[in-house]
């Protein structure tokens, strides 16, 4: 590894090559791997990228998340749904160590991440977006992605200040890669604009691009379709599947748009009051009376 080069030797340029249809990952049936977890069939014989065992957190006396057991396959698109306040974002914050879990274990690719900080977890392979968009608003769109590429660039403060060849090389490669990530989300024309000046939908896309730039093996998307119109949502759905197929990563998303969740997720976890009330394929979830009750209430569920 020479100083200044990028770690990932496989740039997302492969994106441009048209993916033959049969390379696209097909939706597999879920198979049980442990007593409580399911994985898509193609991932079942490999270590799950993420495994939560008995994960929980209490705020004061409130059990915000309790007894959370989930496994996510290496190429799975999984959904996390539930009514408002069910604890979905809290789970993202636990997975990325914004909150310290009160109990339970998180295994990322089979390794316990208990001792890691938020930044270390990102370097270990979890990238995320935020429900309330957290871009670097006063910096350009391109710089936002370059910040995502921070750990992919390798040059020290000395080469930065003296502008040694390593600096120029790494910056050039990083810029090219950043533009590729931007073009994935049709943002390449806005590279020099301030991130804060983008329309809402574009900001959401930029946040995904920035997260992807950190080269994750698991991407957490917190309400990626919020504030998008139906055609943007449709494009987003396609994009999410494309991301999985191109980068071969797992995606866990929180979403209230049921058409998106039911269309692209393989495994779905339903949360209510911090506990899992159902798990399974979209059709399982759709038919599950507990889920209908959680969303519509007991009375509503009866009238349905």
């Amino acid at each position, binding site marked *: 590894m020479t100083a200044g080069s990028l770690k990932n030797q496989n740039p997302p340029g492969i994106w441009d090559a048209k993916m033959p249809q049969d390379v696209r990952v097909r939706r597999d049936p879920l198979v049980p791997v442990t007593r409580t977890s399911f994985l898509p069939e193609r991932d079942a014989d490999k270590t799950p990228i993420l495994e939560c065992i008995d994960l929980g957190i209490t705020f004061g006396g409130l059990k915000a998340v309790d007894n959370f057991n989930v496994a996510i396959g290496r190429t799975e698109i999984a959904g996390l749904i539930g009514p408002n306040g069910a604890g979905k974002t809290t789970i993202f914050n636990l997975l*990325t160590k*914004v909150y310290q879990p009160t109990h339970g274990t998180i295994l990322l690719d089979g390794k316990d991440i208990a001792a890691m*900080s*938020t*930044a*270390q977890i*990102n*370097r270990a392979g979890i*990238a*995320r977006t*935020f429900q309330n968009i*957290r*871009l*670097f*608003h*006063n*910096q350009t769109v391109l*710089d936002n992605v*370059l*910040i*995502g*590429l*921070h*750990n992919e*660039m390798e*040059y020290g*403060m000395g080469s*930065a*200040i*003296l*502008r040694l060849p390593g*600096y120029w090389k*790494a*910056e050039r490669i*990083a810029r090219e890669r950043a533009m590729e990530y931007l073009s994935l989300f049709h943002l390449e024309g806005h590279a*020099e604009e301030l991130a804060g000046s983008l329309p809402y939908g574009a900001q959401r896309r930029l946040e995904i691009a*920035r*997260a992807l*730039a*950190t080269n994750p093996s698991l991407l957490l998307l917190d309400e990626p379709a919020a504030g998008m119109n139906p055609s943007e949502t449709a494009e987003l759905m396609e994009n999410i599947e494309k991301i999985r197929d191109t980068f071969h990563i797992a995606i866990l998303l929180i979403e209230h748009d049921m058409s998106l969740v039911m269309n692209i997720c393989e495994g779905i976890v339903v949360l209510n009051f911090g506990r899992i009330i159902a798990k399974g394929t979209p059709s399982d979830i759709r038919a599950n009376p507990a889920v209908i009750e959680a969303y519509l209430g007991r009375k509503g569920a009866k009238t349905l």
Partner: protein
Amino acid sequence: MKKLSKGARSDLITYAAVILAFIVVSVLKSNGSLNRSQSGLLVPICCYIVMAVSLNLTVGILGDLSLGHAGFMSVGAFTGVITAMSLMNVIPSVWLRLTLAMIVGAFFAAVIGFLIGIPVLRLTGDYLAIVTLAFGEIIKELITCLLVGVDSEGLHIIFNVSGSKTANDLKLLEGGRVIIKGAQGATGTKTIASFTAGFILVMIALVIVQNLIRSRQGRAIMAVRDNRIAAESVGINVTRYKMMAFVTSAALAGAAGALFGLNYSNLAATKFDFNTSILVLVFVVLGGLGNIWGSIIATVVLYILPEALRGFANYRMLIYAIVLIVVMLATNNPVLKTYREELRAKFSRKDKKEAADT
């Protein structure tokens, strides 16, 4: 040729303007257009420019309000003076001694910056400001207790906390010199600072700060400023980059301090008090947070202004204050702001048009 980005272009313009200003002032100085008091301002202006640029790194780029910047300047000044004075017989070259003094000053200021940074950078906002203020005052008080002398046996240092000791307690041999005399500060310093050295230091500070800003490290520092949680979520080690900015800022202040210290034959630690920190902060805020060339212009104008107003005698500081208020109001005036934006938009459209035409 590839088109330069907006940032890189403004960097180059800054360098060019500083070099041009240096040439113009040097010519004025050599043909005698500047009187003694005017040319006496040149070195301090260079020092304060470096102070403002380095403080801008902490306040504007990192986004942490530091009120103890003069403390680092004072560490640099006194370590620099000790270095230059104690090596006077060993190294005859003025330039080499001056360079060494600035390096030593920068080093010690960086070390102190690192030590202070460990507790301070855990804080944010007002708390950080108050603690840096306190550390600035502590540094000043500690240096007031310092007695340093040099003789053929080497450095003699006494830490005079009780206040009962004098320079005689240093027990210097025949031919020894007292360098720092407690509350009196550095006395009898041989002034070796020059305007050219000041100019070179300004250029070095500019290169360091501007190149740092436009690197992965600089982007990380600004990411921490803009959104700490998002910065952590993309794998940026917040503590590391806060420390990097803080220590770099302290080191540059130390180098500026060393030059400043070697510009006066007598210099007391009380020169580097809270007022000096605030003065530099005013330069930074008026020049625009995060705006490097703004800091330079603000420093030059605001440093010369009180001197230029000497003709107004007693009303001098009153006018100075009014100018500060007017500039503050003008830069934050929404009407003027929109007008400026419009002008800028017009110019950039013109640029684009020209680019399209050619």
